[in-house]
């Protein structure tokens, strides 16, 4: 029977390897002429020839969901289960990019987490263009590294559901994997050095004025990241001793440092894949921000200041250390209120506060999907 899996093949994720492709898509592939004619009796060697003839990737397209030769070959590979060496050869070969993507896709479906990260991440450096057929039948341009990124981050590609792999930082924290070293890291370091040189000139001109600190980019980068929390704590203790007079300067310093951190944070996002707790911290901090600011306005002193800065989390806790003066507080609060009213106005346009709860609910779903409200 042409559609049976090789009896000697291992079961993947506890099931027949062909079951990785969903039933409906699988039936569509079995009925496809490409499968019936070309993929009959393929072995690992002849599979390579077919793979070299590929000229586009994609899942199913059109109203009747016709499969592409790409996923027909994927199903064939799942059926015959080539050795890992062969798959790695597919990935390592440089000449045929579609063979490479085929191997990468198969490895993503069947390989262990470590193998997935180890063999797919080098492919991030491949910038070649690929032709992809989208669900409506049109061809779009994409690149090898974009496809690899989709494979590693999303859980659905080319109409096949990807099995779950552990997050990279879990494996790093267990020491199984090393932290990811990007090829562009050298370029970033060069940029940093250039800016540091510029910044040094700026500091010489402006003396000890900390306002210059935020004009240039802060030199604190990943390397200095660990040093920064300590320098903070040290400085705060100075402030606590000189409460009233130095509060003016302290405020400016806080503001500048917060701004720097915002900018740095954006850069971190590009490279830092470790800080996954950020999202949660951010939400929690925003709720606390409002409350803390009011409290701090009344409470004049380092008591409040000590606790947030001492926290070791590198997250947005630092943003909470705003200026404690009442006048500044009011200005910020009015700004916040304006934002809230403008948000409320937007909600009214969305229709999510419609008197009828059903319609409000429907409008909320529509807004989340990006559709206009009901008429």
């Amino acid at each position, binding site marked *: 029977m042409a559609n049976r899996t090789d009896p000697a093949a291992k079961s993947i994720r506890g099931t027949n390897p062909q079951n990785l492709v969903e039933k*409906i898509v699988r039936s569509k592939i079995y009925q496809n002429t490409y499968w019936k004619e070309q993929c009959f009796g393929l072995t690992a060697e002849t599979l390579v020839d077919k793979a070299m003839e590929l000229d586009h990737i994609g899942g199913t397209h059109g*109203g009747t969901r016709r499969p592409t030769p790409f996923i027909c070959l994927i199903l064939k590979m799942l059926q015959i289960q080539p050795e890992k060496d062969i798959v790695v050869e597919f990935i390592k070969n440089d000449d045929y990019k579609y063979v490479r993507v085929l191997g990468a896709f198969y490895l993503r479906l069947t390989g262990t987490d470590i193998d997935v990260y180890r063999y797919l991440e080098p492919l991030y450096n491949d910038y070649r263009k690929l032709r992809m057929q989208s669900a*409506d039948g049109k061809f779009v341009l994409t690149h090898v590294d974009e496809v690899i990124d989709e494979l590693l981050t999303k859980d659905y590609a080319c109409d096949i559901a990807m099995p779950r792999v552990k997050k990279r930082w879990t494996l790093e924290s267990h020491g199984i994997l090393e932290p990811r070293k990007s090829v562009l890291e050298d370029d970033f370091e060069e940029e940093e050095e250039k800016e540091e040189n510029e910044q040094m000139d700026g500091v010489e001109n402006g003396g000890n004025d900390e306002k210059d600190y935020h004009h240039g980019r802060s030199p604190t980068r990943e390397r200095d990241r660990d040093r920064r929390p300590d320098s903070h704590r040290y400085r705060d203790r100075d402030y606590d001793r000189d409460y009233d007079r130095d509060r003016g300067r302290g405020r400016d310093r806080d503001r500048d440092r917060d701004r720097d951190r915002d900018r740095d944070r954006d850069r971190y996002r590009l490279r830092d894949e470790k800080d996954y707790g950020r999202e949660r911290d951010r939400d929690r901090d925003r709720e606390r921000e409002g409350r803390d600011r009011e409290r701090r306005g009344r409470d004049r002193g380092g008591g409040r200041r000590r606790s947030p800065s001492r926290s070791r989390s590198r997250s947005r806790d630092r943003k909470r250390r705003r200026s404690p003066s009442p006048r500044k507080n009011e200005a910020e609060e009015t700004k916040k209120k304006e934002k809230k009213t403008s948000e409320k106005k937007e909600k009214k346009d969305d229709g999510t506060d419609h008197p009828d709860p059903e319609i409000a609910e429907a409008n909320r*779903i529509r807004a989340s999907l990006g559709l206009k409200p*009901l008429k």
Partner: protein
Amino acid sequence: MLEVVLNDRLGKKVRVKCNEDDTIGDLKKLVAAQTGTKAEKIRIQKWYTIYKDHITLADYEIHDGMGLELYYN
């Protein structure tokens, strides 16, 4: 605003509120939000006519309370 009923005859019957100028693709997204399937996996038919994603409900002359068939890709 109109309400369309989609039935897949296997137990899933869904009532969806939508506008006349929504496309079938938007309707599929709303159905996906309510049923939990992915929008790309849904196929909306009427007898043998498969409804295309880019055409609006008004053009297909779908009125309030009309029943459509829900199939899967």
